[in-house]
C-alpha cells in the first residue's frame, strides 16, 4: 500500500506543478491615457492628415484618416468635413492589376462639398489638402474674388476651413479656437511636393533669398520663420495642450517617384532596354541616368512611345533629375531640423515619422502575417496616387504616433488593429462602404 501512497503523492505534486504553470501573465496592460486629457483632439495638416488618398478626399478615405484613427483609440469625438463619393479631387480607381503597370482609371475632376457643412464649429480635422506650411498661419481671406480659394485654384479652403470671422482667420487660429487638449501638427509635405511632383518646374518659394519665386521648394529661411511663428503661437495660446509634431519623409520613398523605370523595355524586343530621353532645365535633351527619378505620371507617356527617341523627349515635368532630387532631399532635411529644434524649444513632442517611414522604405513592415513596403500597389502602404497613404498605411502611421503618445505621456493606448482596416481596394471595389 506504500506504493499507492507514493503514487498519489506523485499525482499531487504534478497537480501543483501544473497550477503554478498556469498562473497568468499579461504582456499588455490596461488601457490608460496617462497624462493625456483626450477631450478635444485636433489635427492641423495637409492632404496626409486629411485622409486624402488615391487622388481625392472622400468619405471612405477620411474614415481611415490618421487623426480619425487616433481619435477612435483616444475614444474621443472627432468631426471631419465628410465628402460624399467621389469626393473632391480626381479619384483614381484601379481598373486592372496588370503587370508591370496597372490600369488606373480616373473619375475625372469632381468637387463635392462636405455633407456636414452646417457643423457649428471648426472641424477637428484641419488637414487642408494642398496647404503649404504658410497656410497654417496665413490670415488672408479664403473667399471672394481675390481669396485664396480662387487665387490658388484650391477649393479645399472653403471646405475644410470655416467662416474666418466666426472661427478664426488662419488654419491654426481655427484649431486654437477649438481649445484642443491634444494637438497633432504635421505640415510641410507640400512645401517640397509641389516642386518635386512638377519635375522641378515650379515651386512654393517666395523669392526672399533672391531666387525667382515659385521655382523651388519653400526656402529654408521662410520655413524656419513660419515654424517659429506658428509654434510660438501654439505655445502662447495653448500652454497646457499636448502638442505632437510630425517630421517629414523624403519624397524619394514615395512610389510616385520610385516606381517608373529608368530604362524602358523595347516593346518590339523585350530583351532590349531603351534609354529614356527628357528635356532638362537647360532645355537640352538628356538621357535619364540612374540618379534621376522618372515620375509615375510619365509611364503613360512612355507607353505611348514618348521619350524613347531623341526627337521626342519627355517634358521636364516628368523627370526629377539628380540636381532636383538633391534640392528636395536638402529641403526636407532642413525642414526636419527646424521642426525638431523648434518643437524641443517649445516643449512639444516630436514623432520621428521621417525616420520611421525611411525604416519601412528600407526594411518593410510586418505584423500578424502581413507585410508592407513602399512599393507601388503591391506594398500596400501607399494609395493609387503614389503619394498619399492607403487606409492601412494611415493605420501604421497612426500606430507610430500612438506609440509616441504612450511613451511621452505615460499612457497605454491600444493601437489600431490593422486587420480591421480594409486592404488595398481590388479593381472595381473602391466605393465599397463598411
Amino acid at each position, binding site marked *: 500500500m506504500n*506504493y*499507492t501512497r507514493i*503514487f498519489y503523492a*506523485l*499525482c499531487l505534486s*504534478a*497537480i501543483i*506543478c*501544473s497550477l503554478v*504553470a*498556469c*498562473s*497568468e*501573465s*499579461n*504582456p*499588455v496592460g490596461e488601457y490608460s491615457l496617462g497624462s493625456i486629457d483626450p477631450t478635444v483632439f485636433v489635427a492641423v495638416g495637409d492632404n496626409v492628415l486629411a485622409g486624402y488618398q488615391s487622388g481625392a478626399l472622400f468619405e471612405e478615405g477620411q474614415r481611415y484618416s490618421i487623426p480619425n484613427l487616433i481619435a477612435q483609440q483616444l475614444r474621443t469625438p472627432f468631426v471631419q468635413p465628410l465628402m460624399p463619393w467621389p469626393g473632391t479631387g480626381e479619384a483614381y480607381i484601379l481598373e*486592372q*492589376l*496588370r*503587370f508591370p503597370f496597372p490600369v488606373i482609371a480616373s473619375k475625372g475632376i469632381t468637387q463635392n462639398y462636405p455633407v456636414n457643412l452646417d457643423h457649428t464649429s471648426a472641424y477637428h480635422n484641419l488637414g487642408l489638402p494642398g496647404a503649404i506650411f504658410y497656410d497654417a498661419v496665413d490670415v488672408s481671406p479664403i473667399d471672394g474674388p481675390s481669396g485664396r480659394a480662387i487665387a490658388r485654384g484650391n477649393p479645399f479652403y472653403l471646405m475644410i476651413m470655416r467662416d474666418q470671422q466666426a472661427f478664426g482667420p488662419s488654419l491654426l487660429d481655427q484649431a486654437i479656437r477649438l481649445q484642443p487638449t491634444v494637438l497633432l501638427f504635421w505640415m510641410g509635405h507640400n512645401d517640397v511636393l509641389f516642386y518635386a511632383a512638377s519635375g522641378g518646374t515650379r515651386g512654393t518659394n517666395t523669392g526672399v533669398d533672391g531666387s525667382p519665386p515659385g521655382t523651388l521648394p519653400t526656402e529654408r529661411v521662410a520655413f524656419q520663420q513660419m515654424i517659429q511663428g506658428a509654434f510660438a503661437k501654439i505655445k502662447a495660446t495653448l500652454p497646457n495642450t499636448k502638442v505632437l509634431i510630425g517630421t517629414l519623409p523624403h519624397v524619394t520613398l514615395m512610389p510616385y517617384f520610385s516606381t517608373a523605370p529608368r530604362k524602358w523595355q523595347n516593346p518590339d524586343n523585350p530583351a532590349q532596354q531603351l534609354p529614356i530621353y527628357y528635356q532638362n532645365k537647360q532645355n537640352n535633351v538628356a538621357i535619364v541616368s540612374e540618379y534621376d527619378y522618372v515620375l509615375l505620371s510619365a509611364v503613360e507617356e512612355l507607353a505611348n512611345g514618348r521619350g524613347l527617341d531623341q526627337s521626342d523627349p519627355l517634358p521636364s515635368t516628368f523627370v526629377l533629375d539628380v540636381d532636383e532630387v538633391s534640392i528636395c532631399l536638402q529641403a526636407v532635411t532642413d525642414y526636419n531640423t527646424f521642426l525638431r529644434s523648434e518643437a524641443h524649444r517649445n516643449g512639444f513632442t516630436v514623432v520621428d515619422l521621417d525616420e520611421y517611414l525611411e525604416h519601412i522604405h528600407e526594411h518593410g513592415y*510586418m*505584423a*500578424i*502575417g*502581413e507585410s508592407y513596403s513602399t512599393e507601388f500597389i*503591391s506594398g*500596400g502602404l501607399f494609395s493609387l496616387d503614389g503619394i498619399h497613404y492607403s487606409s492601412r498605411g494611415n493605420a501604421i502611421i497612426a*500606430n507610430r504616433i*500612438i*506609440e509616441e503618445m*504612450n511613451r511621452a505621456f505615460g499612457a*497605454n*493606448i*491600444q*493601437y*489600431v*488593429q*490593422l*486587420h480591421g482596416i*480594409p*486592404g*488595398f*481596394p*481590388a*479593381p*472595381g*471595389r473602391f466605393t*465599397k462602404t463598411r
Partner: protein
Amino acid sequence: MKAHRSALIAFTCLLCMCTQIRAGGYQLNEHGARAMAQAGAFAARANDLSAMFFNPAGLSFQRGFQIMMGATLITPSYSFYGPSNLNSNQRWDMNSNLFFPPNLYVANTWTDGTLKGFAAGIGVLTPFGLGTEWADDWVGRSVTRETELQTFYVMPTVSYAVNHWLSFGVGGNVVFSSVRMRRAVTNFDPELDLVLDGSGDPAFSWNAGMIVKPMENVSLGFSYRAETAIDFTGTANFNPPQQLASLFPGGDVSTSLTPPATWFAAVAWSPVRDFDVELDFQGIQWSSYDKLEVDFKVNRDNSPGVAQSNLTMPKEYENAYIIRLGAEYRIPMLGLAFRGGYLYDRNPVPDRSLEPSLPDSDRHGLNVGIGISILPNLNFDLAYMHLMFMDRVTEATTHPEGVHMNGRYTGSVDLIGFNITYSL
C-alpha cells in the same frame, strides 16, 4: 466471428471520419488506452498490442492471437490574447473541435512449435497529425484559418524473443497522408481565401526496439522510429473575385514534410506482485523541421502577370523530449487494473517561429484509467488525460519571415482513450 466483422466495419467508419490533433509539435502519442492511462510510460513493458507503437519488442512477450481496437477522443481548447505587438490584449478562441484518431492492431505470438518466440502483427494508427481551426474573421486570419494534417501509418511488425529476458522487434511503416491549409490574403479588399489541399505520396519508414529484463522484476526498453519524408502534391485555390482571378490563378502546388525520428529509453520496475511503475524518456528529433515551403507551379517568378508566390514558413524547431511516469495496479481476482501517470512534454517550437496554426507550449499531462476484463478473453481499457499547456508569452517573434504575431498563447486538452482487446 460475426462480432469481429461488425467491429471491423465500425472501425473502418472511424478511419474515414477521423482527423487529428497535435501533441508536441504535430505529434500524437496516444495509441492505446492502457498506455495512455500510464502517461505513455510503456516502452519498457509494451505488454499490449500498442507495443507496435511504443516498442515492437514487446510483442513476443505476449501470448496467442489478439486483436485490439480503439480510439482517442480529443477536445482541445486554445486561446490567443493579443496581438501584443499591436498593444492589444483581446482574447481569441480557437474553434472547438472533436478529434478521434483510431487505432487497430492484430497480432499473433507463437508460444510453441517451430515459431516459438516469434510474433507477427500489423497496426494502423496516426503518430502524426494536426488540426487547428480559428474563426474566419479572427485577427490572425492571414496566418491561418484552418490547418489539418492527417497521417496513417500501416505497420507490419515482427518480433522475436531470444529467451525470457531478451527480445527484439522491427516494423515497416507505410504512410498515407493528406494536408489542408486555409488562410486569408488580406492585402486586398475584398480579401481572398486561400485553400491548399494536398495528398501525400505513399511514404516509407521503419521502427525497431528491444526489451531486456536484467532482473526478474526490472525491464529496460529501447525503441526508435525513423523519420518519414513525405512529398505532398495538391491544388491551391484563392477563391478570388473575378477582377483578381488572373493574378491569383492558384493551380498545382507541392510541399514536403518530414515527421521526425523519435526514440524511447524506458525502465519499469515491479516492486510487488501486480504493481508496476515505469519511467520513460522520449526524444523527438524535431530539429529536422526547419521550414515549411509551399511551391506554386505558376508563380510570380516564372509567370509574368501573376501575383501569387511561393510560401515559406520558418519553423526552426528544436529537439524536444517527453518525460513519462506511470503505474499500474492490478487486482486479478476482480479482473481490474487501476492506472495513473504524469508526463512533462517539452515543446519544440522556439518563440521566434511560434504561430497559431500550431500554438505550442510546454505541457503537463495528468492521466488516470482503468482496465476491466469483461470476459476471460475480452478486455476493456479506458483512459483519461488532462493536458495543460503552460502559458506562453511571446514578445519577440521577430523572425524576418515570421508572422510577427506576439501575444499570450494558452490552452488545454482533454483526451479520452478507449480500447477493446480480444484474445484467442
